[in-house]
């Protein structure tokens, strides 16, 4: 222990060294107070717009709160009866099933495959062609939903619809007779841009030398995809599938096309929640269902994090 050469008081070190635990703990050297200060605005926003509404939803979900009538003034706590009702509600089961079909058809199969196919074929295309195709696909993605919904209603319309004119099937009410098929087509068209872009950049990660070798040994297109391309982009496929599945499951734009109709035949869970809450005025019950949807989302997100961690 060396004593200071002189008994001059040591000047105070900025950042109060006694409490600094080392570079690994506090790289920025902010100290806890300032770090919290920096974080606070973000946390407040998350708290106000994410955590609070979620908790509020849980709370309303255990009441019989309604939009109008006596229960709008004095709702009472009904415990878990909204949840038990949901478990026995044929319309809720119907909504879950339709959501599953919607996700499977338009996201997992539709957007994934179409997005990949576009990315794969456009990779070698002339830049002008590629840019045009990309612009068109992107346009479908960035247009406002209301505009897009209007265009699709016009496309599917029974009396003067474009589709009927093309196919010569005058009088076929596509949105009434095949509502889910229409929604799957619509959403595939609508959301493919994201998958296309993600796969385009993922394909850059495939070493050209390997593709070249595959060609040299005479591998077929499918073999190249399976043995060379796929192993390189597996992580991207996973990320993409999970993200678009979550988005699709929570997507409300089906409402703009069919309002869940005819007679609940295209009522996915988000649309069902809206119809129960506002058409039926049952805010309590719809909150309970919203909470179930939230849980399902969290589970999928957890699964996703798990899988990602395992990969790395």
């Amino acid at each position: 222990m060396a004593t200071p050469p002189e008994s001059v008081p040591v000047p105070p070190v900025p950042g109060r060294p006694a409490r600094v635990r080392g570079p690994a703990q506090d790289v920025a050297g902010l100290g806890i107070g300032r770090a919290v200060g920096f974080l606070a605005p973000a946390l407040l926003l998350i708290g106000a717009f994410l955590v609070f509404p979620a908790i509020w939803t849980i709370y309303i979900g255990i009441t019989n709160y309604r939009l109008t009538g006596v229960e709008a003034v004095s709702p009472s706590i009904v415990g878990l009866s909204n949840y038990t009702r949901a478990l026995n509600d044929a319309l809720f089961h119907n909504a879950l099933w339709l959501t599953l079909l919607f996700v499977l058809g338009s996201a997992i199969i539709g957007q994934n495959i179409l997005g990949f196919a576009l990315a794969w074929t456009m990779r070698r295309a002339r830049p002008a062609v590629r840019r045009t195709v990309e612009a068109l696909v992107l346009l479908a993605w960035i247009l406002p939903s209301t505009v897009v919904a209007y265009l699709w209603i016009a496309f599917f319309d029974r009396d003067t619809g474009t589709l009927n004119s093309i196919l010569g099937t005058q009088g076929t009410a596509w949105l009434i007779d095949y509502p889910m098929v229409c929604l799957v087509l619509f959403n595939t068209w609508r959301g493919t841009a994201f998958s296309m872009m993600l796969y385009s950049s993922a394909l850059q990660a495939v070493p050209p030398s390997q593709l070249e070798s595959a060609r040299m040994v005479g591998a077929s297109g499918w073999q190249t995809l399976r043995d060379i391309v796929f192993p390189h982009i597996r992580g991207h496929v996973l990320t993409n599938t999970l993200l678009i599945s979550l988005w699709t499951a929570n997507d409300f734009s089906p409402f703009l096309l069919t309002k869940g109709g005819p007679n609940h035949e295209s009522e996915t869970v988000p649309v069902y929640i809206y119809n129960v809450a506002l058409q039926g005025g049952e805010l309590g019950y719809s909150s309970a269902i919203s909470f179930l949807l939230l849980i399902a989302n969290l589970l999928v997100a957890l699964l996703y994090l798990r899988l990602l961690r395992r990969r790395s």
Partner: protein
Amino acid sequence: MRRIPPLFRLAVLGSAASVLLTGCLGSSDSGSGDQDTSRNADAKKVELVIGANSVKGGKNAAGAEFTEDVLIPKFVEAQKAKGVDVTVKFQGDGSDDEVYKQKLALGLSNKTGPDLINVDGIWVGEFAQAGYLKPLSDTVGDAAKVDGWDGWKQIPDSVQQLGMFDGKRYGVPGGTDGRVLYFNKKLFAQAGLPADWQPKSWDDVTAAGQALKKLPGVTPIQINAGTAMGEATTMQGILPLLVGTGATINADGKWLGNTPQLRQVLDFYKSIYGTGLGDPVLQREAKGRDKSFAQFAANKIGILLEGDYFWRSVVEPKAGVAKMADRDTAVGYALIPANRPGGGVKGQDFVSMSGGGATAINPNTKFPQQAWELLEFMNSAEMVKAGLNGAAKITQRTDVNAEVLAGDPMLNFVATKVLPLTQYRPGLAEYPRVSAALQQATADVIGGKSTDAAAKGYQTAVEAAAGSKDKVTSN
């Protein structure tokens, strides 16, 4: 180790949030009940907003035009003479009634919304129960002032009911209406049917339908069904048929359940939509009612059950949403028959249903006194007459009706032939939910379910709406 674990962070935020939300839900019943009703009574600068489901160039355009171009300027002028600077805005809407109602309910539940609100008579009950609307005398604070208004004497009791709940006045009704069977005389002539057609039973209606079915590209009969049309299905479909079986939706304190009369109505739907007399797809479309209007105007629908609104605002040659230049000669109208002569409610041969809206004062208005003045002004004989602008409509005021209805044979027909036979919906808070259950039952039938299955589903739904089995009839 001072790193805050993420879970802990979440918990802190969570508990902070739950502290915030304790006792927020529905607690605010105090509202304007405790507010000073004379607030801003002497204000020299007043701002009022009128809200209604009508919009220039769209739905109920005439109403919006009148409010914006005549009513508001006149009121502003009258107030200016008293030294008060009033600004009145019109907040128009052009949406489906259900959507408009949701918007109102959401606004009122957050203590906002227009100062004067146009509501359908059947919403008054549930809005009143929710505390969204208060009796006029509570909001204005002076029962003598409200009940002493001389306009009440001109409004028949049955029409006053449209703005009442539990024996209290919540709003001033804006007239009433009646339902008839409209038919296209041009198509009738082609099918060899008379131009002065008046069916005497449901069989007569289907027989005319069979004759019309032979015309190519024509849907013989369209009677509103399904959930997409909302209350239009109930008012222009189920209820007129139901009273034709001798039953009403609520009698002796009990709601109609799965009874033979209900099944007769559903069977009639089945006989129309299951045999190609009606177009079931139209009833399932999201915009089906608007399409039914357009198709009738395009001579593609033979018979359509609608209210006088259809005559005044839909096929009206100048401002209708589906104009028919030859309306006066091409569109016929007939009383709605009971299922068989004498089989209707009260033993009637013919039946109808009526409804109507009312204008209420938002209890949260900043200017309750001025809002009442505007409401009085709006319903004065002078303004009610001005609102017609030469056209006829069954207004709330008998003095005005006596003058104007003679000019329009169709409206005169409704006033003299239909209104004496008509029925009103019960002004009970449960009604909209029962109505939704009825709509679902017709949706099931036209979607292919059996009458029995649909009626059973209805029974379950109506019991839930009524609150208990004892409040529902069945057999």
